């Protein structure tokens, strides 16, 4: 059983923002590394059952992280994160967008602005994420997609449950 770490999630419909705060049981250096290194991001960024695959990573202001999330059925969703401002070990911001394999942005979806702030206390490192969307529709679209995924995840949990039941 893991100890419960701070986790806060909220949506502000007036500002079109999503706020996520989470504490991690590691120092800021390590947490920063996990958020900014392609090999490490690939190990956690895509929520299961998706897997993450980096095509290219250029972690500097003006640089781009070009990656894809691949479903168990090998359906690939290409994304790019354009880094805007980086303060090493403290914060970084940028725009996240859907794109194609060549990195051309999908204009059907608005880009989302991310700001991630890292702060270390005696025991934990807390990451505070603010995601800003230009319109309420974008926010709703994003959340609607999450709904689909949540459903897939639900099925995953069902698989687990069934396999546990079989063992009994």
């Amino acid at each position, binding site marked *: 059983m*893991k100890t419960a*770490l701070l*986790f806060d*999630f909220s*949506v502000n419909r007036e500002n079109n923002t999503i706020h*996520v705060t*989470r504490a*991690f*049981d*590691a120092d800021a250096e*390590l*947490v920063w*590394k*996990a958020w900014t290194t392609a090999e*490490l991001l690939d*190990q*956690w*960024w*895509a*929520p*299961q059952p*998706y897997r993450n695959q980096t095509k290219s990573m250029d972690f500097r202001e003006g640089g781009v992280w070009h990656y894809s*999330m691949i*479903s168990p059925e090998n*359906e690939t*969703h290409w*994304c790019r*994160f354009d880094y805007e401002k980086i303060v090493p070990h403290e914060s970084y911001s940028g725009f*996240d*967008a*859907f794109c194609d394999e060549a990195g051309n942005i999908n204009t059907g*979806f608005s880009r*989302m602005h991310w700001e991630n702030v890292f702060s270390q206390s005696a025991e934990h490192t807390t990451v505070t994420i603010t995601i800003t969307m230009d319109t*309420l*529709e974008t926010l*709703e679209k*994003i*959340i*609607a*997609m*999450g*709904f*689909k*995924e*949540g*459903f897939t*995840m639900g099925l995953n949990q069902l698989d687990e449950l069934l396999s546990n039941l079989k063992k009994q």
Partner: protein
Amino acid sequence: MQPNGVVNNSREMRRDIFQAIADPTRRAIITLIAVQAMTPNALAEHFDITRQAVSKHLRILQECDVVRAKQQGREIYYQLEIEKMKEIDKWLEQFRKIWETRFSQLDDLLSTLKKQKK
């Protein structure tokens, strides 16, 4: 970014709350009737669109079970189904779960990295 979902165009698929709020006019209608039940004519006065267009949106909202029509004398009043709107919150809960999954993956990774450091 979250992996994006496949748009389901299947006609058999029942309309849901998310289709109801996908359109700005429908969101405005929801906001108006949240305060009080209204007739299509009264609603149309708030918009620069035809009475027919308002009716079309009302029909979709009805199909989504977000509004209910109530006959009062000669007039039909449309009212909001508050319970249905709560589905949006349930849906947010799913989104929260995605972050939970992602972060628990990161917890595992961080703990592995810490062990490697030692």
